[in-house]
């Protein structure tokens, strides 16, 4: 096994759960997310020579897995922004958070999910979403504010 294949395996073993949980917001279920993660890593492994290394490996694999999740939903190859609508898998478990997330545009929601489900760094999110780190920081700050305004008046958590 070559060095790049080993790096992909290491990424999988360390980050599988985070990838699955974050992708579940796109796939709509953990079963669908699991399949998308498996497919995403399989595609990444098969085409690892195409990874140019100008972004993080995690972000590259995430984009492949995200595409696999959208394909599984029958989404044609269009701009991801046009079809992406990530949501919590079990919204009833946290109505306050669900309501707060609903105030965010889909792209911001995905950035939040990548941060808090997949434990992506700002740099990884920037690479995965094809934006600058500054944009990630600003988006997360806005998301934080929106969530705080939604949550704190309700006294969800003090």
């Amino acid at each position, binding site marked *: 096994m070559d060095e790049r294949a080993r790096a992909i395996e290491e990424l999988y073993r360390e980050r599988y759960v985070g990838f699955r949980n974050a992708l579940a917001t796109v796939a709509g279920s953990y079963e669908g997310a699991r399949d998308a993660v498996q497919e995403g890593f399989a595609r990444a492994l*098969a085409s690892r020579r195409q990874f140019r290394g100008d972004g993080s490996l995690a972000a590259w694999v995430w984009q492949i897995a995200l595409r696999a999740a959208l394909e599984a939903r029958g989404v044609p190859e269009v701009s991801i922004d046009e079809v992406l609508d990530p949501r919590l898998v079990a919204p009833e478990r946290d109505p306050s958070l669900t309501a707060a997330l609903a105030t965010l545009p889909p792209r911001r929601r995905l950035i939040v999910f990548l941060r808090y489900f997949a434990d992506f760094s700002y740099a990884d999110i920037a690479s995965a979403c094809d934006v600058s780190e500054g944009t990630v920081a600003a988006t997360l700050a806005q998301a934080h504010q929106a969530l705080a305004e939604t949550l704190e008046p309700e006294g969800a958590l003090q």
Partner: protein
Amino acid sequence: MTDDLLEQHFSRLRNPVDDSDWLAVRRRARKPRRRVALIAVAAAAGALLVAPAFGIGGRVLDLIQGKPAPPAVQTSFASSDAGRKQLFAFAAAAGQELHDRFSPVIPGEARGVAEIETADGPIYLWAAPTEDGRQCWLIQAGEADGRAGGFGSCDGIDRKGSIRPEGPMWTDQRPSVLIMHVRVYDEAITHVDLQLEGAAEMSLPVVSGHALGTIPQGGRVRLESVVGRNAGGEVIERWTAPE
């Protein structure tokens, strides 16, 4: 802080179950993919566009289409030729008379014939003319710069027939695919139909005297026959595997 607030909320929603399966990922990675198959067909179809040059005649060099081979591939052709010459020199020095069936290759004139994208990476077919107008070829399953291994052969001066399956049915095994290669000598043959035991029949275009394709790995596969057809679908020649 807001970060703590968010973290508290998300920590309750994370599914901690680890149902990962790396071996399943590896198995899935080895399966041929639809996209790969489409690329292969597209590559073959694109290559077919240059096939009419096969019928123009003239030097073999004129029949080999595509980009010039990289230096490493040219070196590989040259090395094989040097090794053959050395073998016959040793034999002559030892008083043995060996019949050299091959003509010297012209490495600097090597050209690309076909490229197929597979789950294992690209497969390239390079061909170089020989001094007597025949060809040598190299199938390279790996990096395009020639660092990875390849395999090939040359036309012998005593060859017979218009169809010559190499291998006898595949010339190398890759993790995901078997490589099929048929050398064709009749310029009227534009494509070949391969009958396979253990796999579906396949049809491959002939480019510069070569038909190259892949089939998915899995189970025992045996080549039963190769039928060479012209552009109208008429059978020009049939090769049948010996019993």
